[in-house]
């Protein structure tokens, strides 16, 4: 596993481009879900609309948690590049803690809605809402598992070329999820409470 500097650079470029193309196709998945949501948002089947069930203050807290974790994941990579293993791990741990809090808030919103009788089976609007926001939440959950494996990996192997590269891909994924969340915050929640 000894690569020359040139080979390592080439390897990085190829892997990050491949991962980048995965992210771009994931954007298309979300675009379809956003389009579905936009089309079905009026289909409330006589039940609630967004205005009645969204709590924009609650969603703002979620947004700030995720935004902050996006920044700390970037800082974890900055520290890893500088070879500061412990600082990198601390930032990664903060990222995981913030991301997990976000996920817990989202799940509590979901379970609250379901317990109030506004589950996904009630109307086309609610189906589209749970599918779109739930798919994002599923990505967050996978990201958290990924980040945990990175913590174990970096603690075991240190900051090698390989682990640093993996950390870089994780930060790309995590920033990408925050960008998707901006769209959810705006087009689902802000538009929802105003219309």
């Amino acid at each position, binding site marked *: 596993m000894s690569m020359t500097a040139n080979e390592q650079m080439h390897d990085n470029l190829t892997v990050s481009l491949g991962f980048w193309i995965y992210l771009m196709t994931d954007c*298309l998945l979300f675009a379809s879900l956003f389009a579905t949501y936009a089309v079905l948002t009026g289909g409330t089947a006589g039940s609630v609309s967004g205005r009645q069930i969204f709590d924009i203050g609650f969603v703002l807290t979620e947004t700030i948690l995720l935004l902050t974790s996006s920044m700390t994941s970037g800082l974890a990579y900055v520290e890893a590049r500088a070879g500061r293993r412990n600082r990198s791990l601390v930032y990664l741990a903060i990222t995981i803690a913030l991301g997990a809090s976000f996920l817990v808030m989202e799940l509590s919103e979901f379970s609250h809605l379901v317990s109030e009788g506004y589950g996904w089976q009630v109307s086309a609007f609610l189906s589209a809402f749970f599918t779109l926001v739930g798919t994002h939440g599923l990505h967050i959950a996978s990201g958290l598992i990924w980040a945990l494996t990175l913590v174990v990996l970096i603690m075991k192997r240190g900051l090698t070329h390989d682990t640093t590269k993996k950390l870089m891909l994780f930060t790309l994924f995590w920033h990408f999820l925050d960008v998707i969340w901006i769209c959810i915050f705006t087009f689902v929640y802000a538009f929802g409470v105003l219309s």
Partner: protein
Amino acid sequence: MNKWLEKHSRASYIIGYVLSLALTLNAFALAATGASMTEGMAWTLVGLAVLQIAVQVLFFLHIGREERPRWNSMAFVTMIFVVLFIVVGSIWVMNSLNYNMTDHETIETMIQDEGIRH
């Protein structure tokens, strides 16, 4: 400016974070009024979202800072186009469908309700 946008720079993350936070709070302030939506408010929200996406793309994802040929940027621009086609196209087509393809019975009922002879 270029220094802040540099990959792997701590400053780029902090600046991106502060700008994103400011834009989010603006969108929140508008949404928290709970007013009914006007066209101006809708465009303001869209503008704030687009700005924030641009901020994060530049300061967090560092698009456009990679070495040439810029495959990542090209894939990104292609993705933006496809996303616009999917989203704008779906909304456009589905709204037209509701308008143009209302079923026969509904139209008959509407005509009766309106008292139109035909």
